[in-house]
């Protein structure tokens, strides 16, 4: 009798895990908005990785025109978490199609870095 009960519970656990796993683990792809190049004028910057740092690690952009920064496939690890504190930019760029967009509204030299400050670079706004 006791063995029967235990078997019931074990089968119940397996059943619950299987059914919930089917629903919760089934679709792991996040839907993405279509990438659209026609959304207006912007400055496109693609950054790679060399010597465990961003490459190029100095980028120059024009003031007042929106900037989109992409990270190519060479960028791995925490460097994919891209931040520019001065412009409130902080985003995890999972794929090469992901980007950060901001409008540099002041001239100067600013720092960009990964979230853990292990990769750094300079953004010059002219």
């Amino acid at each position: 009798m006791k063995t029967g009960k235990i078997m019931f519970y074990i089968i119940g656990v397996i059943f619950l895990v299987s059914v919930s796993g089917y629903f919760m683990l089934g679709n792991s792809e996040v839907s993405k908005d279509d990438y659209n190049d026609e959304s207006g004028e912007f400055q496109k910057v693609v950054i790679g990785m060399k010597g465990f740092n961003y490459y190029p690690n100095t980028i120059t952009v024009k003031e007042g025109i929106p900037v989109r920064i992409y990270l190519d496939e060479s960028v791995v690890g925490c460097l994919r978490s891209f931040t520019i504190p001065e412009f409130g930019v902080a985003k995890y760029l999972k794929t090469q199609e992901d980007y950060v967009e901001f409008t540099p509204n002041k001239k100067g030299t600013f720092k960009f870095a990964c979230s853990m400050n292990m990769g750094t670079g300079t953004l010059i706004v002219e």
Partner: protein
Amino acid sequence: MSFKKFSSYVSEEENLVRAIFVSLLSSFIILAFFYFLILKNIIDFIPNYGFFLFFAILSYAFIIPSIKHIRIYGEFACMSGMIIGMTIGMISGFLGGFYVGSTNGMFWGSVFGMSVGMFFGISNGKCCGIMGIIEGVLAGFMGGLMGGMTALMLLNDNLKYMAVIVFFISVLTLSGLNYMIYKETREIKDKRRENDFFTIFWSVLLTTITVWFMVFGPRSVLFQ
């Protein structure tokens, strides 16, 4: 351990298997309730949170029965109490911190993990006095912090595989703890009677808090 010994252990601890079943059932029922009530309107709820929520619920289904198991016997020797406080504090803190950290970032994952870990560490370690309490606090603190930190550092490096690995290691550790409790207390005749309320209450509460935290809770700037 031979299969015969293992079978005798499982049949002695029927309540443990039952509690895992009850915990899973109550967690998934409350999750289904929330899903049809509100979560189905959240865009990409399953792809974003389903995996980590699934493993969080599985983790609670092993942690809560172990805590119930400890409550049934109540008092332990100092050495046992310390390992109980440390194991429960560390595992509950680490797993909670890891899964919430994967969706909300290191700070909030660590805060969640430390809160859960220290609470359970203290409440289980107190069975053997101040030493067990300190052990529970330290384990919860360390586990929670490590869980959140590990999740963030693995963000772009097989985070989901690691989520599965840490889950299985934790289950193995908790199984060892339950077997230790069984071995040390099988001579005790006056076990405290515990019904399913404890299991249901904590499963529902932890699942609700985790869902709320992951979906609506505060998150680090990288996860916004």
